[in-house]
Each structure stands twice: as structure tokens, then as C-alpha cells.
């Protein structure tokens, strides 16, 4: 036990002295929580600027634009009537713009009187791939619909109410924070063990350690112990930062405490995977490349930053083949949703994978030669 503690302390000292280790353990998750929180956590609706060329400039066209402004979703600004709207859009890199045609008011009046065209069209210019395009199309069509009801002196009949069935109100950061914690476990345990196994083999540290009384299992336990303690601290720091900055919805109770089990089992899983990858790496450089090949897809597809349902079904299938997905889901079930069934399922998967990877990895990691 004494040797395990000594090895844990000495390894921790070396790990933190690399600076990179300290960064990925504490600073990286805090940065991500601050950044993602800032991007997603606000509840206020954004207002888009909508450039409009009003070629009619009548009471009716100005009324339509005022109605658009009143939605608070868009803020209307004018494109001079003298401009060619296509050129203007290109010159200003606009995602969307609206043109009210000349004769808009007169055509509407004629249409109502049955003497003009059956439809009077406004023109939306835009790039459907831009996120603002869909919002503007929706707002303009909603305002146009209201206009039509008023002109026809009709009222809408079919509508809808909203009933919230969720037990709590969740923000986006509530979803993201457990994902960041899961990703931090993966980064630290897997990347470090992959590089360390390759380095210890090529620099003959394993052989050097084999000349002492330290046993391989004691060395492994010291790594697991260090990563578990360091990542538990990182978990507490992440939750504290999330609470202070974005008031994350993480209750402090017994179910939340089950996240500790996920951290420890997650460390075993990714340390084992790291040992496995390290065993197949020629040197620390190739170990880093191999860890990136495995780690980066897992980071983006393992549900750290967005829900798996947002991805195409074939990518969801890939995501469910990734260990990080289950760690993230388990942490989310423990920290946010408080879902004991989900916790049990994800813990079972993570534990089974941890046993497989850790046993395989430690068997392939040789201290001495045959």
C-alpha cells in the first residue's frame, strides 16, 4: 500500500508539472463550460437584423414592416430603393433580405376588389443554408398570414397550447456539462496512458521499475488512484463553475453522488483503452496520433456536446459503439436527469467495457522481456 501511495504522489507531481496535464485536467473543462455556457445557456431570444428594400413605400408596406419589427425576432433596416438588391446582398454578404415590390399597396387593393392579381408576392432573397434564413421565412410568413386574416376580416380558429411534461426545466448547459466531464475523463486517462505506455517502453522505464520491489499491479493501481482523485476534483470544479456561471441544474443528493462511481469506472475503462493503444504504438509520437484517431471522433460523436438524436441514424449507430457515449449518458443520468434505470444500464455497460479493456491492456503491457 505504501508503494502505491508513493507511486501515486510521485506520478501526480510529474503529471501536474507537465502543465499540459494540469490544463486538460482543470483549465480545459472550465474553459469549455464557460464557452458553451455563454453560447447556449442564455434563454433570451436573439433578434436578427433583416434588410428590406421597400420599393412601394406606402402606408401598407410600412405597416407590414412595422409588424415584422413588432415580432422582436427581426429588426428591419432599409436597403435604398436605388440599389440592385442582388448586388447589395453579395456586397454585404447577407444571408437573407426581403423586397417589397413597387405597387404592393395598389395590387393588394386591386386583388381585394377582384380586379387585380390573385396573389401579391413579397420576395425573400437568401441562402437556405444560413441559420437566419429559416427564421426569417417563418417570421415573414407568420406576419403575412396575420395580414391576410385582417384583410379578409377573418380570425384564426385552430391553434395550440403548450404543456411541459419535464420534471425540471433544463438549459443546454445542463446537458453539456456532464458531457464535458465525461470527455475530460477520456482525455486525461486515455491520452495519458497511451503516451505513457509508449514512453515507458521506449525509454525503458518499465525495465527500470522492474528492478525495484514495485509490482506492475501496484503501478497500475497508482495510476487509477491518481486519475480518480484528480478527475473527482475536476468534477467538483466543473460543477462549481457551472453553478456559479450558469446556475446549472445539478441537485446535490445521493443520486448525484453516483457520478463518482462513473468517474472511477470511467478511469478504469479509458486507462485500459490507453494501455491497449500504447501497446500497439511504436513511440510516444505515434501513440499520440493513435489516441487522436480514437479520441477525436469519440469526443464529437459520443454525445459530449449535442444529443445523439440530432445526428443521422448511421452516425447514431457509430456513437452507440463508442464507450464515451455510455459514460456521458450515465453521468447525465446521475447529475441531471436523476434516472436510476439509466444509471444502472450505463454503469453496467461502462463497467463491462472497463473490465475488458483494463484486463487486455494490462496483459499487453510488459515490463520485462521474455
Amino acid at each position, binding site marked *: 500500500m*505504501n*508503494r502505491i501511495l*508513493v*507511486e501515486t504522489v*510521485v506520478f501526480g*507531481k*510529474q503529471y501536474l*508539472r*507537465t502543465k499540459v496535464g494540469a490544463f486538460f485536467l482543470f483549465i480545459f473543462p472550465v474553459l469549455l463550460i464557460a464557452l458553451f455556457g455563454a453560447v447556449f445557456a442564455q434563454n433570451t431570444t436573439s433578434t436578427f437584423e433583416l434588410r428590406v428594400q421597400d420599393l412601394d413605400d406606402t402606408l401598407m408596406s410600412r405597416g407590414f414592416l412595422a409588424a415584422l419589427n413588432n415580432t422582436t425576432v427581426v429588426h428591419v433596416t432599409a436597403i435604398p430603393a436605388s440599389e440592385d438588391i442582388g448586388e447589395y446582398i453579395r456586397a454585404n454578404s447577407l444571408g437573407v433580405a426581403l423586397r417589397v415590390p413597387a405597387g404592393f399597396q395598389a395590387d393588394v387593393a386591386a386583388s381585394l376588389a377582384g380586379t387585380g392579381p390573385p396573389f401579391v408576392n413579397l420576395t425573400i432573397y437568401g441562402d437556405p443554408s444560413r441559420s437566419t434564413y429559416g427564421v426569417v421565412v417563418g417570421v415573414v410568413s407568420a406576419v403575412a398570414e396575420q395580414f391576410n386574416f385582417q384583410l379578409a376580416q377573418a380570425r384564426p380558429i385552430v391553434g395550440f397550447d403548450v404543456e411541459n411534461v419535464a420534471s425540471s426545466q433544463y438549459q443546454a448547459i445542463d446537458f453539456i456539462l456532464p458531457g464535458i466531464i465525461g470527455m475530460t475523463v477520456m482525455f486525461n486517462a486515455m491520452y495519458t496512458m497511451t503516451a505513457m505506455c509508449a514512453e515507458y517502453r521506449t*525509454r*525503458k*522505464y518499465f*525495465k*527500470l*521499475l*522492474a*528492478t*525495484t*520491489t*514495485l*509490482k506492475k499491479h501496484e503501478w497500475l493501481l497508482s495510476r487509477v488512484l491518481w486519475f480518480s482523485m484528480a478527475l473527482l476534483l475536476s468534477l467538483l470544479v466543473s460543477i462549481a463553475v457551472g453553478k456559479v456561471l450558469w446556475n446549472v441544474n445539478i441537485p446535490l443528493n445521493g443520486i448525484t453522488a453516483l457520478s463518482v462511481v462513473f468517474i472511477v469506472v470511467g478511469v478504469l475503462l479509458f486507462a485500459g483503452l490507453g494501455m491497449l493503444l500504447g501497446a500497439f504504438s511504436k513511440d510516444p509520437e505515434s501513440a499520440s496520433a493513435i489516441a487522436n484517431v480514437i479520441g477525436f471522433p469519440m469526443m464529437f460523436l459520443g454525445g459530449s456536446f449535442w444529443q445523439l438524436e440530432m445526428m443521422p441514424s448511421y452516425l447514431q449507430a457509430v456513437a452507440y459503439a463508442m464507450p464515451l457515449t455510455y459514460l456521458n449518458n450515465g453521468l447525465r443520468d446521475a447529475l441531471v436527469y436523476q434516472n436510476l434505470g439509466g444509471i444502472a444500464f450505463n454503469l453496467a455497460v461502462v463497467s463491462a467495457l472497463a473490465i475488458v479493456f483494463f484486463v487486455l491492456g494490462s496483459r499487453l503491457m510488459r515490463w*520485462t*522481456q*521474455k
Partner: protein
Amino acid sequence: MAGPVIEVRGLTKHYPDTKAVDGVDFEVRKGEVFSLLGPNGAGKTTTVEILEGLRAPTSGVAKVLGHEVGNDYSAIRRRVGVLPQEFEPFDRLTPAETVAYWGRLFDRAVSKEQVARLLADVDLAHKAKVQALHLSGGEKRKLGIAMSLVGEPELLFLDEPTTGLDPKARRDLWGLIRRIQGEGRTVILTTHYLDEAEQLADRVAIMHKGRIAIIGTPRELVARAGKTTIVLEGAGAAGLAEAQRLGVPAELEGDDLLVRVDHASAVREVLGRIAAMPVPARGLYTRRATLEDVFLSMVGAKMEDGVLRP
């Protein structure tokens, strides 16, 4: 312990493409400095790593401190110190931290004073608080030696301990090894420096191609080689031709003419004949046989930095 500290009988280590150790026998007695000498690839390190419990032998007997190495080495691990050939310290630890840490890995709580004394012994006290990353190659080697000593081992394996050290550091380390020997501890010194083995070793085993070519004290080996060399400096090809004309077996080493004389009694007579040769020369002197001559006669080649030179 009454028996030998190390006992090796018929030791082999075979790989699919090579016989790294091919039937080696020797014993090392308590308090001895025993040197395994040989070029790179001779089988020294493989032999030593088997004795350190780091490799399994293919066949044969290898006993260390009375224990068969293939069995439970952990029983003797605390009593054995090792400086491996390819030693590298841990980059982010200072020498003081490393030595204290290493002591704990031998279940030995090492005080700050003991750490300071060990670092002073290897002339590394001034770098005690510098991370190993910033040490020179020689300083790293010294740290490795301090680590091998921290468990106060009865048996010390030093594999190429002076590689990378400057001449002063080498001589300092020789002094340290003599002191360790004076404390009754046993040292297995693997080296390719002939002068080092000659200076330090009580007994030397010259290894070549996985076998021990010759074993004995340096004095015995030199006596067995038995040759005194007469050197005619700068005699060149003309000197060689003249020697051959006189029927004196000679060879050239650079521009110097070397004549090897088997028996001390014949030196005076041969010296007279060489001195009388009508060839210009810068000087004439005799050279006592050294381990280098022994090595040359056993292996048929010279050794420079571990590499055989014809």
C-alpha cells in the same frame, strides 16, 4: 551466505535468429568487483539482465544471492541495486526527489540527509533541485548510480556506468566503486572500457559472441597473454621490411612498428636487434601487455567504444 553471490552454469539465451548467450559459466564471490568485458552484442547485457531477473534464460542455472533467478526474484529484489545500460531518469523529478522516491520503492524511508549524502557521493549535490530534464548526459548517469545505491544493496549491477562521463567524473566513480567494494559489497561491472576493467575488477570475463572467451584476474590474463611489446616509433614500412629481413615477426600500428615478445627473457635480445636496425625512428620503448593485448589475442580485433575494429 557461504556460497558464491552469483553462480552461472551453462547459461543460454537463444532467440529465433541469434544465440545471445551461448553456454556461459562463472561465479562471483562476495565482495568482488567482477567485470564482464566485451564489445557491443557480445552478450554482456543479456547475461546481466538474466541475473537481474529482467529476462528469462533459455536454459542453464543462474543463481543470485542463493536464489534461482527464474523463481521468485522478489525475495532478493531489495538486496540488489541496478544501473541499466539504457538508463534515463524521470524528466519531471529532481535528483533529490528521484533518489528519495527510489528508496521508497525498496521499502526504505530515506532521510533528506541520506539523499544529500548520496548525491554528494556522485557529485550531483549542486543539481539536487533541478528537474532531470535539464541535466546533462553525464549528470543523468550519475543520478542513475545514486538510484542504484539508495537501497544499500549487497549486490550492485552497473551496466556501462561511465558511458557519457568526462575523465574526472569517471575517475571519481572509480573511487566510489572501490569504496563500495571496501564495504564488502559485490559489484558486477559491465563495460567495454578495458582500462576501467583493469583498474577496478578483481576478476574479468571477456565475452565474445555469447561465450566467455577467457576469465581471470587482470594480472592472470595479462600474464597468460604474456607478451611484451617493443615499439619503434615512426619506423613505418621501411622498419617493417627491415624487421622481416631480420626474421623478426612485426606489425605496423599506424606508423609505429610493433614487435611482440612472448617471454621476458627474450626481450633484451630482440630489443638489441631492433635498436640496431638502420631505419630512422622517433623513439624506442617497451610496453607491458595490457588487457587490450589480451582482448586482441582472444577476439582477434581491437575494441573502441564497444565496437570491434580489425
